[in-house]
């Protein structure tokens, strides 16, 4: 049987989901026997590869880079799994949405609070522009399965990965879909 080509992606989130993933500790060694991790923020690879079997996407779509990148991820992956509450619901990343746009947050952070040289960061091509509204991943591309939690606890991640490695459809129930 061909080894699963697995990727993880980090968008608008705190990386807590990835920390929880790393909390799988020695099971990660077992995972390395079962799957090839072809792309992840914890390895140094710049371009998302083709023909990924499954990808866990952490974080909401919060800026233009996320928006562009997730299209590539979607195109090049067979199964896309929203990984953690930010990807699934927008969660904390979407906290600014009730304010109506991204501007109040930028103004608070870059104009009101700094002691020196308050200005909004504008570096086209370097600093991605924020989206007016943060949206969950499935609002932008088709999502095949959901792995909620903030972060999803390691055993829940393990259950999901074992299901994927076994080639079974991923659908979680009960306490395994608890938000928060």
């Amino acid at each position: 049987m061909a080894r699963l080509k697995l990727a993880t992606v980090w968008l608008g989130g705190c990386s807590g989901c990835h920390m929880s993933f790393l909390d799988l500790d020695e099971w990660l060694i077992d995972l390395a026997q079962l799957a090839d991790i072809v792309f992840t923020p914890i390895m140094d690879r710049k371009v998302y590869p083709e023909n990924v079997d499954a990808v866990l996407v952490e974080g909401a779509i919060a800026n233009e880079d996320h928006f562009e990148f997730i299209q590539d991820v979607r195109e090049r992956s067979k199964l896309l799994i929203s990984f953690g509450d930010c990807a699934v619901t927008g969660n904390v990343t979407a906290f600014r949405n009730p304010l109506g746009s991204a501007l109040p947050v930028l103004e608070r952070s870059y104009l009101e609070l700094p002691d020196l040289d308050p200005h909004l960061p504008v570096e086209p091509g370097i600093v991605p522009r924020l989206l007016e509204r943060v949206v969950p991943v499935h609002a932008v591309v088709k999502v095949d399965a959901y792995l909620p939690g903030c972060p999803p606890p390691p055993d829940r991640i393990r259950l999901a990965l074992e299901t994927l490695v076994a080639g079974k459809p991923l659908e979680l129930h009960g306490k395994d879909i608890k938000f928060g």
Partner: protein
Amino acid sequence: MSVTTLTIDGKLISASQDETILDAARGAGIQIPTLCYVDGLSAHGGCRLCLVEIGGSSRLQPACFMKVAEGMVVQTDTEKLREYRKMIVELLFAEGNHVCSICVANGNCELQTQAMDVGMDHERLDYTYPQRQVDLSHERFGIDHNRCILCTRCVRACDELEGAHTWDVAGRGSNSKVVTDLNQPWGDSPTCTSCGKCFMACPTGAIFKQGATVAEMDHHRAKLEFLVNAREKKQWHV
């Protein structure tokens, strides 16, 4: 009080005539999901989670309101009802600003539990991200309207158990909100007795104890139950 016989989910059960379908089902060990209903408070019929199918009627009826009747055939868990309940919970998540991970009630929230029970692993509808306020003017409690699901449990607990009727609902439709007195800051309320029954009744983290942080809050719902039993049945079991 005469006794009637009815069928709930294929199970033949007897119930006294003045019981609701919800009472009768619970008596027979059949769980019907509820959110706005609280034992000891009047039924509200707003959350629609307890809707059941009644044989011979095309209209779904709230189990918390509908009285049993002889020969009634009730279905509480059909595919249609499951799908509708899931949509109700999704509607609730979409209309407020519910962020479980940073909520005082995380792990102790009935909305969160309902989401698990109905199998909601993501939101299929648009989040509306309403702009809502937080009132921290009361010295012991606070209300975060972002987390309010308008179940009116606080309104009924305050009116029916405490007798103060500090809480009520103002506005309409998606602009509805619970208010203290005449929409004054809670801390300025001359009628609030600070008894905390609203806090005990609240199913989410909307009404909370000041100083409680994420996932730290317990509503002490048992205390409310104790009060109801003491008042109605003259039982003081702690």
